[in-house]
């Protein structure tokens, strides 16, 4: 019980210990060092791609999701169309592309 106010006070003192931090100056050669590092940097030419700057990862993800959803929708509607199989069979028969029993018989002979 006796320790509690002591700890509370210590906690408060610790939280206040950073209230009067003095400004720390950078080294005198800091500016020169940074400028020489900048001079060493390879020059990047990004001008040619600047028209695509707006196409950020957020937009890229949205475009990808749209692409996947549209494709899934197209595939679903393509296969769920009940007349599709019939149309293909008719088409194959008209153009002699279907495998009929007659054909099999002819081939066997």
């Amino acid at each position, binding site marked *: 019980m006796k320790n509690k106010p002591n700890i509370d006070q210590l906690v408060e003192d610790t939280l206040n*210990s*950073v209230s009067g931090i003095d400004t*720390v100056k950078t080294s005198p050669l800091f500016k020169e060092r940074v400028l020489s590092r*900048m001079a060493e940097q390879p020059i*990047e030419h990004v001008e040619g791609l600047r028209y695509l*700057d707006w196409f950020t990862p957020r937009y890229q993800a949205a475009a990808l999701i749209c692409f996947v959803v549209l494709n899934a929708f197209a595939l679903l509607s393509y296969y769920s169309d009940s007349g599709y199989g019939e149309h293909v069979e008719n088409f194959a028969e008209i153009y002699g592309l279907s495998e009929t029993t007659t054909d099999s018989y002819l081939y066997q002979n």
Partner: protein
Amino acid sequence: MLLNEENFIKALREGTNQAYGQLLDEYQQKVFGTCISFVPNKEDAEDIAQEVFVEVFNSIDRFKGDSKLSTWIYRISVNKSLEFIRKKNTKKRFGFMQSLLGNDLPIDRSSYFTEFNHPGIQLENKEKSEILFAAINKLPEAQRVVYTLNKIDDLSYKEVSEITNKSVSSIESLLFRAKKNLQELLHDYYKKEGK
């Protein structure tokens, strides 16, 4: 005073030495101040501050002008400092091993990511500040950023809200939670220390 901001940014994009000289005159102290607030070691903070200016140099073409130049530079400073801390923390911390051995202390000064060397802290406050910095390192990142910018780097709520892209009320709430968590962490620490 600098040229007006638009012309100044144009000069930075052209990469003139004069423009970068002016940029450094204007911002080196601010950037270094932010870096040392996150990483209380003069040498490490200077290295990070250098990285910040090199990043500004390399990405000024991508600066869209949605925010003030100063806000953008502060954001780079915060991100570079956090990147440094994350890298050092993963090297220093053997979290998995510690949790297995039951040594995972709430505040552990011995596993702090850098050697504490902040010349701006008075000698009589050094030990307590060291404990506080170790406790800040245990906070969730959003609380840590807001607390450090406001309480250590002494930036206003408005400045913190611009840098973090959050409303002033969320800054207040994050600060409140950060202070509460720090109180709990410090309380546990002193209790274990037997003070």
